[in-house]
């Protein structure tokens, strides 16, 4: 696919918009793509990155990623009009229709888990769902998309160091929320997902998981987790092809 725009939103956080035919296959928020960050064998593996938003008619989609290791750092050097090798869309995303018109949905994102919630939020709002966003970051300078989310619904920010919004974690914010909500959609680091599962497991809670991947398509068994109803047995789910989004309790975090 072709780079349309590529910009740094916050230190090391990049927003990359690509154009190409395969956008037409994107069906659900929370799906991801596997990005080849360079030609050749180094780094070898593709990088899983969530689709942050997509526009089927314009054949465009956007991802937001942190340039951290070898692959993402190389990706961050791609310039406008250059080609990027994308495999996807992959996996099963957030079940948008689980939140019904007129209901309120809570969208909880942590750090680089925030991006896929953006497409989700847009689609929920389009369906007449009220959305509340609770977004957690390390520090003020790491925050991105606050304005974009605010335009869709209430947006609360937590920072670990208290440099902006509420000091603490997303759960610090949620525990004090006054609004009611029936459904939670969440994406972020595993400790955050565990805290949500512990505190809000009785709600309709959907979690997007991360796992180290080989193939990204279900063939290599790198990304399996035990299922909730057989926690030590042989049944399993693959994060890449059964997930990355699961209903809380479906798999063992």
């Amino acid at each position, binding site marked *: 696919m072709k780079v349309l725009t590529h910009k740094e939103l916050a230190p090391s956080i990049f927003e990359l918009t690509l154009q190409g035919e395969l956008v037409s296959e994107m069906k659900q928020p929370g799906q991801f793509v596997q990005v*080849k960050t360079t030609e050749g064998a180094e780094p070898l593996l593709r990088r899983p990155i969530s689709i942050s938003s997509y526009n089927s008619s314009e054949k465009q989609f956007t991802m937001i990623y942190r340039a951290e290791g070898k692959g993402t750092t190389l990706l961050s050097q791609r310039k406008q009009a250059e080609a990027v090798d994308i495999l996807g869309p992959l996996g099963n995303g957030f079940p948008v229709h689980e939140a019904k018109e007129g209901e309120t949905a809570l969208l909880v994102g942590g750090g680089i888990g925030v991006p896929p919630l953006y497409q989700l939020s847009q689609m929920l709002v389009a369906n007449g769902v009220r959305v509340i966003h609770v977004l957690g970051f390390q520090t003020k300078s790491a925050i991105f998309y606050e304005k974009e989310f605010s335009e869709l619904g209430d947006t609360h920010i937590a920072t670990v160091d208290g440099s902006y919004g509420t000091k603490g974690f997303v759960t610090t914010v949620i525990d004090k929320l006054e609004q009611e909500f029936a459904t939670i959609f969440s994406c972020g680091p595993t400790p955050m997902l565990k805290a949500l599962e512990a505190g809000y497991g009785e709600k309709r809670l959907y979690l997007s998981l991360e796992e180290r991947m080989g193939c990204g*398509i279900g*063939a290599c068994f790198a990304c399996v*987790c035990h299922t909730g109803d057989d926690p030590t*047995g042989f049944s399993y789910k693959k994060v890449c092809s059964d997930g990355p989004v699961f209903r809380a309790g479906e798999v063992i975090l």
Partner: protein
Amino acid sequence: MSRLSVELPGLHLKNPVMPASGCFGFGREYSQFFNLDILGAIMIKATTPEPRFGNPTPRVAETSSGMLNAIGLQNPGLEKVISEELAWLGGYDVPIIANVAGSQITDYVKVASDISKVPNVKALELNISCPNVKEGGIAFGTVPEVAKEVTKAVKEVSSVPVYVKLSPNVSNIVEMAKAVEEGGADGLTMINTLVGMRLDLKTGKPILSNRTGGLSGPAIKPVALRMIYEVSQQVSIPIIGMGGIATAEDVIEFFYAGASAVAVGTANFVDPFVCPTIIEELPKLLDELGFDHISECTGRSWKQNEAVTNYRP
């Protein structure tokens, strides 16, 4: 396409290119990308008598031009592999090579005996070399006498030819190859992964929960080529070569070293279309190199022959 066809014990291959075991599941996922019929064969994921969940995650880590895996032979077990996976694969016109694994000789015998009776299974691949299984798997692959015993036992019960997959983690690969040849192996597949490790800079601990894992990908290609070169001159059974293959040029290099067919593993993860692409490129490359048939390439590095000369990349 007959210039790519290869005849090996039990296997009439349209072409010498097949996905390697564990890197293609049982084919379902890749069937979304292309028609499996175009493949020379399919090496399916290791099968053990009982289902296995495998190791905890993380199960993969990246290395320079390679990757480590410690899947731990996760598979649904012999019964389901036959009733679900092989039955599904029966809908395709492609020979299956069943990868047979276990922790003790009786496991291998059990799997081999049953799975070799399935009509589309045309050969077995004895996985005596998986570095991620603790209960003795490694010993099978590094002690010649034991490897010979397993081979013998499996040959006795198998209804199809038996290929033995060699581990590269040995002092003397030729000795291992000769041992399994004496044990009755009909062919060899090589190489399995090298045992490797990565540490997490943050935690100081191994990245893989299993601590060590199997190194695969382009990084190991030179080791695979060397071992195939050494072994192919010392045994009279054919070799299916693997280890880092990603292009048609790589395939030819493996043939030159002494392979008669090849398997593609890790490269499938990088590019799901890698097998069809290689199969399409091979005839063109044979033209450039001046070969009529791919089998002319086998062992060219050590056979007496004229150098190929009309090649300009």
